């Protein structure tokens, strides 16, 4: 049973470029959340997708957008990259519903470096 997978593992971009990160959730999970983690800090919530719609959004600008596909996989897009967007981007999957306790399982992350 594959866990959460993310691609690519590492990515180097320059300021102003656009990037797309991809995530496949754990088998049986229907909800995908994205987080940004700066070095030495806890992850910060970007947004969550459920039933192909953005269900909740954190305090991130509109340059950050996403999508969820019918097979529950998800993409995170960041436009007009800034140096400050350099971070580890984590995808987490979970199962929505009573009794789930919002347990989120994380992928290995994509390390984005903006030069």
């Amino acid at each position: 049973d594959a866990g959460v997978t993310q691609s690519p593992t590492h990515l180097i971009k320059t300021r102003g470029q656009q990037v797309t990160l991809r995530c496949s959730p754990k088998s049986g999970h229907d909800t995908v959340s994205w987080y940004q983690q700066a070095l030495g800090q806890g992850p910060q919530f970007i947004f969550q997708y459920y039933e192909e719609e953005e269900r909740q959004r954190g305090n991130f600008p509109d340059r950050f957008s996403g999508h969820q596909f019918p097979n529950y996989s998800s993409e995170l897009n960041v436009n007009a990259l800034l140096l400050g967007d350099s971070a580890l981007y984590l995808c987490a999957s979970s199962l929505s519903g009573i009794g789930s306790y919002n347990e989120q399982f994380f992928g290995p992350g994509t390390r984005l470096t903006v030069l």
Partner: protein
Amino acid sequence: TQLLEQSPQFLSIQEGENLTVYCNSSSVFSSLQWYRQEPGEGPVLLVTVVTGGEVKKLKRLTFQFGDARKDSSLHITAAQPGDTGLYLCAASNGSSNTGKLIFGQGTTLQVKP
């Protein structure tokens, strides 16, 4: 704004010592998770606590959820070098069992042989 404050932020101990990490907030949470993260990898879920006063044990790790569901602690007995990593607490707000997890800033644990 709901915040989770972890303490200490950094801990360096010798193999065999005991330690406790604290996770505190002024908000009530429906559930709280503890994760462990190694450099360059994603956080790995260790435990979920949901009931006030709940205690869960995972080998040498003991997790406790406060009676008022506002705080939690992680106690490690006889720490080993393999316990080295970043320990994160995370919680869901109020009555929700979906949506964002709010994370503490993490406790970096270094266990020296």
